[in-house]
């Protein structure tokens, strides 16, 4: 950190755009394939090497989330340092390869920025996912994107609690940005969702270009939703769910849920209310891929983060 409370960063010269980290999340698969096979003009910016990349080609081929194990949970220290071998699950092999190409994670050779493109069946709109509240470069980028798409909104989800965060593909880079756009069913390409993701990415790349040109971004604040707790479905002794997200909660991502509000509805019609200590802001409500991860939704709390001014070194 330099004087005058301005945070200095190196120019972001190497940027990657990941698609197909989950092979059935079609916006990212389609965008990255488009850029890899056709013109990259749209993602080119002066002084930036932008690399589109399909992270899980076998899962994309099968149009499934993963082949052996979830790639977006596979970038643990243990996996990345495991001895190489064909016996490793496919996604662990991929994680090691991606770490070699775009990392190594935590080193000075790692890519500057990785955008990882995801879809969700939840009604989350265009969500940006932040993994650290102290990444002033990312905070300034997200502030820039939010202002650029106003009055449309772009919630920022902060997931930095060590007990709740996970070892993502994008975590290999110095600055990791998750783009999560929904609602879209797995395996389906919706034109409006595709275009929304494209626009967010365009603004993100514009920000990087401006930063690299020497623009100083003044201090700002960013409203975020900080992940607080995972809520599972009620289940029976065999692990089968015995209730569904209540119709009053379904599709209400980012809206307040207060104690006493309906939360689940059993298959025979009874309401199960939310019984937390105070109001929370739920998200990832009814995401298809999270049934097997024991998650019906996550609760978040609103916070305002302060970002220092930033400029390039």
């Amino acid at each position, binding site marked *: 950190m330099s004087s005058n409370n301005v945070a200095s960063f190196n120019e972001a010269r190497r940027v990657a755009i990941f698609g197909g980290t989950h092979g059935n999340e079609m916006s990212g698969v389609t965008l990255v394939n488009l850029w890899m*096979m056709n013109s990259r003009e749209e993602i080119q910016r002066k002084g930036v090497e932008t690399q589109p990349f399909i992270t899980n080609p076998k899962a994309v081929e099968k149009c499934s989330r993963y082949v052996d194990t979830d790639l977006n949970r596979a970038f643990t220290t243990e996996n990345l340092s495991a001895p190489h071998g064909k016996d490793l699950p496919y996604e662990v092999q991929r994680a090691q390869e991606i770490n070699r190409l775009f990392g190594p994670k935590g080193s000075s050779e790692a890519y500057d920025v990785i955008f990882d493109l995801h879809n969700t069946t939840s009604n989350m709109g265009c969500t940006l996912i932040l993994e650290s509240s102290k990444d002033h470069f990312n905070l300034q980028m997200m502030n820039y994107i939010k202002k650029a798409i106003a009055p449309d909104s772009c919630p920022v989800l902060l997931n930095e609690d060590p007990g709740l965060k996970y070892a993502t593909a994008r975590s290999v880079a110095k600055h990791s940005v998750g783009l999560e756009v929904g609602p879209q069913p797995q395996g*389906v390409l919706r*034109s*409006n969702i595709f275009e929304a993701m494209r626009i967010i990415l365009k603004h993100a790349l514009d920000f990087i270009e401006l930063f690299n040109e020497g623009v100083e971004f003044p201090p700002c604040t960013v409203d975020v939703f900080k992940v607080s707790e995972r809520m599972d479905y009620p289940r029976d002794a065999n692990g089968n769910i015995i209730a569904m*997200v*209540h119709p009053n909660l*379904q599709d209400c991502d980012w809206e307040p849920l207060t104690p006493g509000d309906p939360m689940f509805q059993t298959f025979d019609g009874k309401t199960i209310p939310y019984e937390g200590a105070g109001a929370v802001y739920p998200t990832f409500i009814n995401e*298809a891929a999270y049934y097997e991860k024991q998650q019906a939704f996550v609760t978040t709390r609103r916070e305002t983060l302060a970002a220092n001014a930033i400029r390039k070194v």
Partner: protein
Amino acid sequence: MERERVYLPALSRVAVCGGTHGNELSGVHVVRERLKEKQQRVDDEEDEDVVSVSNILTNPRAVQQCRRYTETDLNRCFTRATLSSAVSDRTPYEIARSQELNILLGPKGSPQAVDLVCDLHNTTANMGVCVIAYSDTDWICLHIFKYLQHHMSDVPVRYIHFDLPCREAYSLDSLGKHGFALEIGPQPHGVVRSNVYTYMKTGVELMLDWVRLFNSGTVFAGGLVEVYTMVSAIDYPRERHTHNIMAAIHPELQDQDFCLLRPNDPLFETFSGATLRYQGPEPLYAFFINECAYYEKGIALSLARRRSVEVPPVQMKSGLEHPGDPGTSEEEED
């Protein structure tokens, strides 16, 4: 002037089937819940009924894995050819399963087959509630549809007719003497939406209410119903070498199932923003718009003609021989 009353035999045995596609979750949970409720009635010794209802998870392996199918689409395995093909230990799971189900619910086309099969499905398309059947003269299916439409007033209910003769019918519902699929959307695969589950559960209960009333001798008045008869399907434009899709359903068409698609209306939007338009000769009704499972079947949307069908009044009459064709009335036996 109303048509003459048609007399049909009672529907003594009904099968409610879910999980034919293992990731279409409304049917999975409706069947599981019904099995639980049935067990409760048995425990409470309250199991008398004018109809015998079986609740079946038809593709348990796919349900367990939450996938549409494990090796091949079960709901295409009920043609006579597949049902009579030789089985070895290399036979795909779903083909072996279709033959088991044929023993359980059929044999297809025989007097031993169950009277009615109701197969529960979900779609990612915005289709509301649909009754899908092979016939537009099966008065049982059409009356059940009419009853559902009348009693489910907060959701659109439509009848889709796939005009295929019996010998080409490929889906599970063709095992019964009468059968239909109850298709409800939009719902992502692998997700259970409470409103869609409730529509499915209500639809099944209303169907069984109708069957009980019918079996008890109720006369159901005739009337006109609208039927959508499938005519054709359109695939996505695809790249020649990779076969990858090159465009998405146009934003003006997305979610507009059962709109009338006129020549020159927007159909697709390419990834460079160009609009591709419908080039067909006649206006047709679009449905199954952007169904996830149909990408691999080469279908972006399906097209139907719509017309009115006059459904006659029906009443159960006991002692009838099973009619050769559904919907014909029979002489009373002496």
